[in-house]
């Protein structure tokens, strides 16, 4: 062969090699996929846990129904009425057992409050306790709920946000609930999909953040206009307003949204979570916005918030933010922020975000880098709730992500029509009338939820099929709780227009654990915002007591740590919301510690 022929051959081979790269990548990914193991013992050995779906056997047979809307939206009804299934956990009657609250979303349907009977079963007592009938014509339909002891009486109160009038229920010492919405001074109508209890000014009283999704002027059952859709799919500015209500301590709340700097934007906020991210002692807010960028609001010493998303490196690439979760995934005592987005093969590849703190950052605003790809937790699908939890008690936080948008007729697909419209100008996409009819077509449906197992060495591995968690409902909201006080985190998943699922978690014997249930004294009684650092085995784990996070959900208030093989805990440091620092030396492993905020101690 002459030189020219060799050159040509080289170039052709080079070209073919390039075309083969995607196939090679696929093969590589397939090799790394977990395998389904039929034998639970082998699953335990390999992954350290497996999940057993037990909903019906424990008395939970809840079916979510999506809302009916104005007939003007009939042609795209499933995609507008795509949210409302939620789960939140609370010990409603302070009996030391975790109870489950589930929301429904069609007029006439009831929300459910499953009280833990202590014998392994649950019983729906929502109607009897007065928190069932929240899906009422003229008042709206439920979208989610968060629990917090706003009056510091030792019992968790209930806030239900709706597409409609939000409702506050005072917990009457576990015997029932009293509706206190009117005297509390809450707004008449918010199309909300998230709310968070947190004490933003550290006055010992829980304040309330509510995130608006659709604009608050929209009444979905009496539409005045069909121009209700986002005005952009990357930079939408016509979403609902957000609210911050300051707790006055007398059962009333004051709208401080504008004075605290949270009325800056009208983004489509789908999820929110609060935690002290810069060590100031005051909780900061992270918002996941659909059709826009993630937002980070840094607390200015309780006086207000500054939108610092861009400064933090988070606020540049607009995606479809659906969920916010905090987790110390590298056991460094630092919280990363996980935000789910949308990835659909070949159409829209946003990737989920894992905002990991840059350890070299200084100043009031921490900076973050998106390391989701590096750690292997980037490509979910149409994501909703994402939550960190140590599923196998090995001392490393794992990740559960709910996926799936609209599962309708199998073998059909609405993506083409969706992509056709969202690529257009604002005057086209904003009007629901311009949207092609869905005609019972599936839209990113039948997607399997992900369970990513943290190997502790900087990589996550997807194991849902292998551990019995391969759920393909249109899951929305997820929560964890130690439902049977076994030192293991069980899982509750609420799905849109589908049944709620409870998974009993079985972990490998020999993995130790420790939990802390906190009661504030100077701090808010729920201790929401408390930071717990655990030192063990030469490492450090951090947890935060949350007043609502992920997507429309709230997990148990008690913080839980897996310890792996180690039974010795060096110490635990609790930074209470009041600022008080408490150190507990060598707490005993394999038990739940109930800690009351000390009246004295270092600050």
């Amino acid at each position, binding site marked *: 062969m002459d030189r020219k022929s060799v050159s040509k051959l080289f170039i052709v081979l080079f070209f073919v090699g390039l075309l083969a790269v*995607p196939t090679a990548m696929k093969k590589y990914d397939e090799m790394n996929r977990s395998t389904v193991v039929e034998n639970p013992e082998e699953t335990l050995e390999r992954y350290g846990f497996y999940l057993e779906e037990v909903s019906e056997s424990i008395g939970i047979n809840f079916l979510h129904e999506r809302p009916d809307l104005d007939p003007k939206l009939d042609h795209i009804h499933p995609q507008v009425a795509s949210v409302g299934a939620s789960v939140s956990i609370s010990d409603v009657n302070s009996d030391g057992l975790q109870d489950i609250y589930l929301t429904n979303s069609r007029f006439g349907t009831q929300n459910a409050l499953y009280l833990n009977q202590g014998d392994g079963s649950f019983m729906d007592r929502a109607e009897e306790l007065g928190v069932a009938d929240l899906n009422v014509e003229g008042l709206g339909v439920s979208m989610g709920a968060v629990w917090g002891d706003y009056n510091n009486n030792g019992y968790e109160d209930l806030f239900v946000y709706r597409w409609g009038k939000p409702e506050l229920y005072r917990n009457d010492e576990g015997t029932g609930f009293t509706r206190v919405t009117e005297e509390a001074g809450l707004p008449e109508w918010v199309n909300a999909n998230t709310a968070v209890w947190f004490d933003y000014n550290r006055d010992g009283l829980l304040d309330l953040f509510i995130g608006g999704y659709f604009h608050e002027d929209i009444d979905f059952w009496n539409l005045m206009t069909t121009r209700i859709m986002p005005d952009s*799919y990357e930079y939408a500015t016509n979403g609902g307003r957000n609210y911050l209500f300051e707790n006055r301590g007398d059962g009333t709340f004051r709208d401080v949204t504008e004075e605290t700097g949270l009325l800056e934007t009208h983004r489509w906020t789908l999820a929110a979570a609060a935690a002290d991210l810069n060590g100031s002692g005051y909780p900061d807010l992270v918002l996941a916005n659909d059709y826009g960028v993630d937002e980070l609001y840094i607390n200015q010493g309780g006086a207000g918030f500054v939108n610092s998303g861009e400064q933090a490196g988070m606020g540049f690439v607009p995606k479809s933010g659906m969920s916010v979760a905090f987790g110390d995934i590298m056991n460094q005592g630092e919280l990363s922020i996980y935000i789910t987005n949308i990835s659909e093969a070949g159409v829209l*590849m946003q990737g989920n975000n894992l905002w990991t703190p840059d350890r070299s950052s200084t100043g009031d605003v921490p900076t973050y880098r998106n390391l989701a790809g590096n750690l292997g937790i980037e490509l979910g699908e149409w994501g909703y709730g994402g939550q960190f939890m140590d599923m196998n008690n090995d001392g490393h936080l794992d990740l559960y992500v709910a996926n799936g948008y609209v599962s309708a007729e199998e073998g059909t697909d609405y993506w*083409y*029509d969706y992509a056709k419209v969202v*690529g257009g100008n604002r005057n086209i996409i904003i009007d629901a009338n311009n949207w092609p009819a869905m005609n019972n077509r599936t839209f990113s449906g039948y997607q399997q939820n992900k369970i990513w197992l943290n190997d502790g060495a900087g990589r996550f591995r997807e194991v849902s099929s292998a551990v019995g968690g391969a759920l393909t409902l249109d899951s929305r909201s997820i929560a964890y709780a130690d439902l049977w006080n076994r030192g293991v985190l069980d899982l509750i998943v609420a799905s849109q227009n589908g049944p709620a699922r409870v998974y009993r978690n079985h972990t490998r014997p020999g993995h130790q654990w420790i939990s802390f249930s906190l009661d504030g004294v100077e701090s808010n009684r729920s201790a929401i915002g408390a930071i717990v650092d655990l030192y063990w085995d030469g490492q450090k784990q951090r947890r935060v007591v949350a007043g609502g996070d992920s997507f429309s959900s709230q997990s148990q208030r008690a913080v839980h740590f897996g310890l792996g093989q180690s039974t010795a805990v060096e110490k635990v440091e609790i930074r209470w919301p009041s600022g008080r620092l408490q150190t507990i030396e060598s707490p005993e492993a394999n038990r739940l510690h109930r800690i009351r905020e000390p009246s004295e101690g270092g600050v």
Partner: protein
Amino acid sequence: MSPFQTALLEKLRITHIPKSYIGPGLISGVVIAAHISFGVLDGWDKFIAAIAAAMLTDLLLHKVMTGEWRNLSSAFISGNSAGILVRSPMIWPFVLCAMISIASKYVLRYRGRHLWNPTNFGIVMIILLASDYAAVLSIQWGSNMWAMLVIWFIGFLVLWQVRLFHVSAVYVLSFLLFAVLRSYLTGDHFMSEVAPLTGPMYQLFVLFMITDPKTTVSTRNGRCLVAFLIAFTEFFFRLNEAVYAPFYALFVVGPIALLVEMWMQEYKGREKR
């Protein structure tokens, strides 16, 4: 050099740096400004990686093929296009698209001419082969009506000056005609059929891709016919719900048109002899 760059060059009369790089540089400047304003890119790293990959590939393959170094302005443009059009949370699809685009110019040739618009080929390969990892720009940027109208106006003005306005005009009119027909056949609102044309993917497609002089036929009537046939083929792809219908249409029609023209020219040459 693309018609855009030629026109911009003439307007600005910049002569103190190599002319072939001025146009591509201006394009990058516009993209950078747009990213700062609207965040049009997936990220600086991906954009730069695409450009670098395109230029290095062109440098390497041209050296292997001819033994000489070459001007890289064309590769720079292909890298820009890949950096704008590919959407992926990972970097490698950007790099791969740019490399495939450039390599296709060296491999898929007929009688000394490459048949596919390089970026069109690269994009279609990414859609077909790497859809698990990447997608193509389909969502609008700022969705501002005036910005969109200004881009179309300036685009058409430049195309008018370089005498290629007819290509885009025929395509746009054909697209609108077929949008009416699709709306009638599918029952979808006419505005939903027109919607894609108002987005950035089509701005790039109509103003850049189908007017690429190296991969379009030589006669004015021929170019008009090809533009119509692209819209016609796209019509069928759209009826079959192909999200990236315009890229597929150009991928099919473009090389066939060039081959037909070459064969016709050859036939006429024989006739004359």
